[in-house]
């Protein structure tokens, strides 16, 4: 008897454990956020957890089961249903198959499906079991993102078109300035010159002085027009970046300056091998302007000195500067120096105030920075940075 009773106790214990185990798994299934299901061989859902019922628009698991929902009927696309059947038949499993479905409440949703075929002892199809995850929110977010991207791209296209149109307008404008504004100036300068040459005796001293001033003013305005055009050119011209030998260009500029005014005594100290990635022509304009300025503002000194030096400045960045020991400037104005048509010096020094503005625009187009240091009577230093490669 005691043997039988012990056996019975064992069975009871096993049954209790089995119930406990079933309760544990049931709890997992009931509380899972993924939909979990089992179907018969025809695909009719036999087992569902609450998450699947909710996902598919049923108010309860019971309602879902009562509807005799067929897995295959979920898919709005026949192609997708055939794909599901094909893949199940081929490998017996399906992983992460994204399907568009319609819920019982008519709502469209995206489901990611993982399932496998379950076989009976004789190898026949017993059913399908698996999980389903609602991807609708993620899909909607993706769609929204795609729509946003498309809108952004459209806006960029619109802006680009607008910019191109304005650029074309500006080009037409500068072309007109270049051609039409210079013509009357040429008449003013030309006829003044002829007056001075051929009607010199008819003019008195004061008359001649006035004509001289007309002539000088028209030549100066011609210079202004050229400078405005230069400024628009450095902003608009297409850049061709290559390895550029700045030292070589600087030496060429220094030689030109010296040749134009051989009486001046200026020592140029130009560091060898300053090389950067830049547009050759534009960077030549930078050096012409900076060295030209240094040359101009050292003129009052009997013996001037101009340096062109570089030093490393952070990874991939080259810092260069042009330093002179000329008249310098009031550091209060170190930023206004770079604004177009702002001049610190009076007519004692020639110029229209466009050189440094051009320098800044060119350096900025290369992704670099410009700044100046100086003091009245103690020279000036103009820095700029460029990419090393």
């Amino acid at each position, binding site marked *: 008897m005691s043997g039988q009773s012990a056996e019975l106790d064992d069975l009871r214990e096993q049954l209790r454990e089995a119930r406990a185990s079933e309760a544990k798994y049931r709890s997992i299934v009931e509380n899972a956020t993924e939909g979990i299901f089992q179907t018969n061989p025809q695909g009719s859902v036999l087992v569902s957890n609450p998450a699947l019922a909710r996902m598919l628009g049923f108010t309860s698991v019971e309602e879902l089961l009562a509807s005799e929902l067929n897995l295959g009927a979920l898919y709005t696309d026949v192609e997708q249903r055939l794909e599901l059947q094909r893949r199940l038949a081929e490998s017996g499993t399906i992983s992460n198959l994204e399907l568009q479905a319609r819920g019982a409440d008519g709502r469209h949703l995206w489901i990611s499906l993982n399932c496998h075929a379950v076989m009976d002892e004789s190898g026949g199809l017993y059913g399908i079991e698996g999980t389903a995850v609602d991807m609708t929110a993620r899909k909607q977010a993706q769609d929204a993102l795609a729509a946003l991207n498309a809108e952004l791209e459209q806006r960029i296209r619109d802006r680009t078109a607008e910019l191109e149109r304005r650029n074309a307008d500006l080009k037409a404008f500068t*072309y007109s300035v*270049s*051609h*039409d504004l*210079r*013509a*009357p*100036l*040429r*008449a003013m*300068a*030309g*006829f*003044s*010159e*002829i007056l001075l040459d051929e009607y010199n005796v008819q003019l008195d001293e004061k008359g001649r002085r006035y004509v001289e001033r007309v002539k000088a003013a*028209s*030549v100066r*305005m*011609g210079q202004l027009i*050229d400078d405005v*055009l230069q400024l628009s050119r450095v902003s608009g011209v297409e850049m061709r970046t290559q390895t550029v030998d700045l030292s070589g260009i600087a030496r060429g500029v220094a030689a030109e300056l010296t040749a134009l005014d051989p009486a001046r005594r200026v020592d140029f100290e130009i560091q060898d091998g300053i090389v950067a990635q830049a547009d050759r022509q534009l960077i030549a304009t930078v050096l012409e302007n900076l060295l030209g300025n240094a040359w101009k503002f050292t003129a009052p000194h009997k013996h001037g000195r101009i340096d062109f030096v570089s030093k490393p400045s952070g990874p991939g960045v080259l810092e260069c500067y042009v330093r002179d020991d000329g008249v310098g400037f009031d550091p209060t104005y170190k930023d206004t120096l770079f604004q177009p048509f702002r001049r610190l010096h009076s007519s004692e020094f020639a110029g229209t105030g466009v050189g440094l503005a051009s320098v800044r625009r060119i350096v900025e187009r290369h992704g670099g920075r410009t700044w100046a240091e100086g003091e009245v009577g103690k020279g000036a230093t103009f820095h700029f940075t460029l990419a090393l490669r």
Partner: protein
Amino acid sequence: MDSADGVEILLVEDSPDDVELTLHAFKDAKITNRVHIVRDGAEALDFLFARGPYANRDTTDWPKVILLDLKLPRVDGLEVLRQIRADHRTKLLPVVILTSSREERDIVEGYRLGVNSFIQKPVDFEQFAAAIRTLGLYWLVLNRPPQRAAA
């Protein structure tokens, strides 16, 4: 207006100021060659190809040099140049573009179309006169045109 025959310099220029200054510069440079002035591109082409008012022009007689402004009424300078270079009778004529334009694309296009030289008219008259002097010396004195068979 001058007779259309015996023309050595054809000046294509619409601005009366520039015409006067150019003639003055010729005088200063002691260039006494016969100048004929046309006021726009269409008239330049009529002159060269003996059409319209120039139908009776002697077409065995060609200018030694054509001075061509770019911005012209009716037919612009580059189009005039294109047509000059496209015609076998005129394609070897020396053409000098004389213009206010400093536009790179004009210069490039001018050379592409086969202009012989390109002079930007400076505002300063002395520079302008110097350019005219050099131009006259080269195209009217030094340059030897190819012997051309009369058409």
